[in-house]
């Protein structure tokens, strides 16, 4: 068991021993007519010494030997009782000199060895106690209260001590895993960075050489964009997980590729998770549309801006553009395509979508969505 968790148990046992020692002394002082009270005080003295010894010994070095000695000393004190009490000792129910002090080793065994050790110690002491009280033939008429309580204490304390130990172990493992994870992340950042550099270099050189190398370069470029986004990590912003807010900028940056440039502010653009996903989906639809209508090689730009109470995302392509009125025409004819999936999503969020096409400068779709619905 980990030291940190175990120590409070041992301190509690010491407190118990001291308190029950005081109780035993009171009982002896109050009892009259004992045969040899001097030996009784002698026993109390031994108990006091042993209490001090265990308080020190258990906090420094715990071992089986110490537990066995603890048990023997306690049994000795218990078995000395008849000599002290003389005629008073017997089945009449007078408490032996150590009184409740005999619980000490039971607790110690339970904390050290768990439930079974605790019960074993309790049984040993109970048998000795019952034997003292004259139950020499194991007469079941002698009240068993004390014995039952002692065994119960051994079992329960042993059980709790084990549970605590397991909890401590799990906590320790979780802490180790977390530290390992952090270290791995730190290493990964460095590795990713050098992989990114190599991919970018392959892309650049490949395009310069041309031919098959250009194809390799293009592939490297795609992988570079994918990896770069992965390194940038999750759209969940530290500190905002609980509020259900995510960074739309990070979601949009996932659309980035060799053909698509995504521009966002350096600080997170926060939107409730559901709205953020809808916006990202609308942008995805707009980009799909660009690819479908203007070809794979068409370049596109995505710009995210935060305004007062709203977020504006603009998607522009450098395709041929939509002739004036074509979009309204298509909408009127019921061939909604772009308009429906984009306008629909944005309108569902209480926002607006606006299409602009300037001849020779491609098409722009501007989506403005309020930050709260």
């Amino acid at each position, binding site marked *: 068991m980990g030291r940190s968790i175990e120590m409070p148990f041992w301190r509690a046992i010491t407190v118990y021993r001291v308190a029950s020692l005081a109780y035993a002394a009171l009982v002896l002082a109050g009892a009259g007519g004992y045969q040899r009270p001097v030996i009784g005080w002698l026993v109390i003295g031994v108990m006091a010494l042993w209490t001090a010894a265990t308080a020190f010994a258990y906090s420094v070095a715990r071992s089986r030997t110490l537990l066995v000695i603890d048990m023997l000393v306690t049994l000795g004190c218990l078995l000395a009782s008849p000599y002290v009490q003389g005629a008073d000792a017997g089945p009449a129910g007078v408490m032996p000199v150590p009184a409740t002090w005999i619980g000490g080793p039971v607790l110690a065994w339970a904390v050290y060895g768990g439930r079974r050790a605790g019960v074993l110690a309790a049984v040993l002491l109970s048998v000795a106690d019952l034997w003292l009280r004259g139950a020499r033939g194991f007469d079941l008429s002698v009240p068993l209260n004390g014995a039952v309580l002692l065994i119960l204490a051994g079992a329960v304390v042993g059980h709790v001590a084990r549970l605590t130990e397991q909890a401590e172990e799990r906590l320790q493992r979780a802490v180790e895993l977390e530290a390992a994870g952090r270290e791995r992340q730190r290493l990964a950042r460095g590795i*990713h*960075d*050098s992989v*990114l*550099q*190599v991919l*970018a*270099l392959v*892309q*650049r*050189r490949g*395009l*310069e050489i041309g031919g098959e190398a250009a194809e390799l370069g293009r592939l490297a*470029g795609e992988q*570079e*964009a994918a990896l*770069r986004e992965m*390194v*940038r990590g999750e759209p969940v912003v530290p500190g905002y997980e609980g509020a259900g807010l995510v960074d739309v*900028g990070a979601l949009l940056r996932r659309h980035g590729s*060799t053909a698509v*440039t*995504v*521009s*966002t*502010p*350096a*600080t997170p*653009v926060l939107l409730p998770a559901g709205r953020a996903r809808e916006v990202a989906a609308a942008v995805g639809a707009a980009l799909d549309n660009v690819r479908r209508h203007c070809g794979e090689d068409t*370049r*596109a*730009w995505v*710009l*995210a*801006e*935060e*305004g*007062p109470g709203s977020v504006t995302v*603009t998607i*522009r392509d*450098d395709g041929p553009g939509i002739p004036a009125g074509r979009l309204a025409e298509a909408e009127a004819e019921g061939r909604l395509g772009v308009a429906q999936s984009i306008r629909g999503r944005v309108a569902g969020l209480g926002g607006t979508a606006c299409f602009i096409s*300037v001849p*020779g*400068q491609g098409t*722009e779709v501007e989506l403005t969505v309020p930050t709260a619905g």
Partner: protein
Amino acid sequence: MVVDDHPMWRDSVARDLEEARYEVVATTGEGRQALRIAAAVRPDVVILDLRLPDLSGVEVARGLAACLPAPRVLVLSASAEQEDVLEAVKAGASGYLVKSASREEFLDAVRRTAEGEPVFTPGLAGLVLGEYRRLAVQTSPDDDGPRLTDRETEVLRLVAKGLSYKQIAERLVLSHRTVQNHVQNTLNKLQLHNRVDLVRYAIERGLDEG
């Protein structure tokens, strides 16, 4: 001068520059060394990677801006965080290019940097727009924080949407030169504000300690 911790990249960039008849006065992979060398060889242009083993790229950009005369800095980075890019630009870098840019784009960016013209990729324009927005929200209306004019905002948004200066000039019916000036102004204001902030901070610290 080329500062990049990746030897293959360093060589590749240096070779491209030499083929394009630029003189590469120094190459290094470490930030502190970069600052020492820059002070000695006084390069006109520094091509700076933001990921270096000892200093952060932002710190190097800040250190270079303190050189006299300050070299022009073009940030060329693979996986740099958005915040780092913005900080480097605020610290005085006048352009940013991702490493996946083609050789032509790169050489064009170097040429413009050497001429003192900012290299505004759409990504950088988005970052700068976001930063002005952040400053506007953060500071009170009567504060002297930097503001964009409506025209500047318009130009910057078009840059962020991937339009070339020529296309912007056509759309807004401006001269190419005017578009360039607007872009330059947005960057100058941000860098000036950053310097003023640093000075203010230094004075406050100085007064407290004195």
